[in-house]
C-alpha cells in the first residue's frame, strides 16, 4: 500500500512538472521577429505565441498543415506539439519571418 501510494505521488509530481513546462513555452512576436527561436520543448508541450507588434501576424506550420488565425496586437495562438521533431514555421502575412520549434522526446 505504501509502495502504491509512493508511485502515485511520483506520477503526480511528474504531471505537475509537465504542466509547468507547458506554461513556460512561449514565443513573443515583436518588430517582425519571433523570440526565442529556435525554441526547445519536450514532446506534449503547448507552445503559446503572443503578438506584441503593432501589425498583425499569423503562425503557419507547413509540415503539420497548421495555420493560426491572424493575431492582431496582444492576441495569441497556442499549439500542442505531440511528436518529437524539428518544426519550422513562418508568418502567413509576412513569410520572410521564420521561426523554429525543436521538440524533444
Amino acid at each position, binding site marked *: 500500500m505504501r509502495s502504491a501510494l509512493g508511485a502515485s505521488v511520483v506520477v503526480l509530481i511528474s504531471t505537475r512538472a509537465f504542466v509547468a513546462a507547458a506554461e513556460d513555452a512561449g514565443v513573443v512576436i515583436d518588430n*517582425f521577429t519571433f523570440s526565442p527561436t529556435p525554441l526547445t520543448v519536450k514532446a506534449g508541450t503547448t507552445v503559446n505565441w503572443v503578438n506584441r*507588434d503593432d501589425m*498583425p501576424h*499569423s503562425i503557419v506550420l507547413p509540415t503539420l498543415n497548421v495555420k493560426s488565425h491572424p493575431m*492582431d496586437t496582444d492576441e495569441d495562438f497556442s499549439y500542442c506539439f505531440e511528436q518529437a521533431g524539428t518544426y519550422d514555421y513562418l508568418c*502567413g502575412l509576412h*513569410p*520572410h519571418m521564420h521561426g523554429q520549434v525543436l521538440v524533444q522526446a
Partner: protein
Amino acid sequence: MSNDSIIEPGDMQRRGFLKCMTWAGTAMVWTVAGGVPRSRLIGNAKAATNDGFSFVQISDSHLGFDKPANPNVTATLQDALNNIAAMPKQPAFLIHTGDITHLSKPAQFDTAQQLMGTTKLAVHTVPGEHDILEEEGKSYLNRFGKGAKGDGWYSFDAGGVHFIGLVNVVNLQGNGLGALGHEQLDWLADDVKQLTASTPIVVFAHVPLWTVYADWGWGTSDGAQALSYLKKFGSVTVLNGHIHQTMQKVEGHVAFHTVCSTAFPQPAPGSAKSPGPMLVPAAELKQHLGIARVSLVSSNAPLAIVDTPLAG
C-alpha cells in the same frame, strides 16, 4: 535633384531605383515614349493640366488599423478620395492595389466600399495579404471579385489600354516573396496572346512584381515569368503597392511604380530593423501618404504617373 532634371536612358541603368521625393512637395512624372524612358520632377500644377485618358491609383488603406502611426486611417482615405474628387478633369476610374482593410473584417470592407463609392468612379481592385485573412479570401471576392478568375485576377480594356489585375498574396511560401502561381501565369499568357504589340499594357498587383528588397519579402518569386509574357509589348507599366512608399524603375520597355499608402508610411528598404509602420510627427503624416494619377499622354502609348501627397 533639381525640379527639371531629366534622367536619360544611360542614367537609368546606373541609377537602378529612383526614389520619388513626394514628401519634398514635388511630384514625379515619367513617360516611356518610343523606347526612350525619361523621368523628371515637375510641379503639381503642370501635371493637373494633362488632358486625355487618365485614371488614379490608391493603395494600402488598412481600414481598421488604429495604432499610433495613424489612429484614423478612415479620415486619411477620405482625404485621398476628396483630392481625387477635386481633380479638374475626373479620371476614368479608380484602382486600389490592395490592403484595402487591415484584418478583412466585414465592417472594414463596408467602410471601404462606402467611402470609395462616394467618388462615383468605377473601382478596380486587387487584394493585399490583409484582405484575405477571413474565409480564405471569400470575404474579399464576394465584394470585389465579381467576374474575376481564381483568387481575383482579371483583365479589361479602357482608353485603348489593356489592364491586367494580378493576385500575388495567396499561399505565400517560405522564401518570403509574393507569388502568382501556375494557374494565374497560364491565364496571363492566354489573356495577352491576341493583343497587338502596340497595345499599351498596365499590370497592377499588390506586392511589387520586381524585387525591391527580398529580405523583407518585397518582391514576387515568379514575377519575372509574368513579365516574360509581356515582352512583345512596346509599353508595359506595372503598378504596385504593399511597401507604403513611392519607388520606380525602368527596365527596357517596362516601367515599374509603387505608390504611397493612404494609411501610414513604411521605412525605406533596409533602413530599419523591420518593415513595420513608420512613426512620423502627426503634422507631417499627410506628406507621407498619397495618390497617383496615371495618364495616357499620346496615342503612341506613353503613360505618365504623377504622385501627389495628401498634404505638403
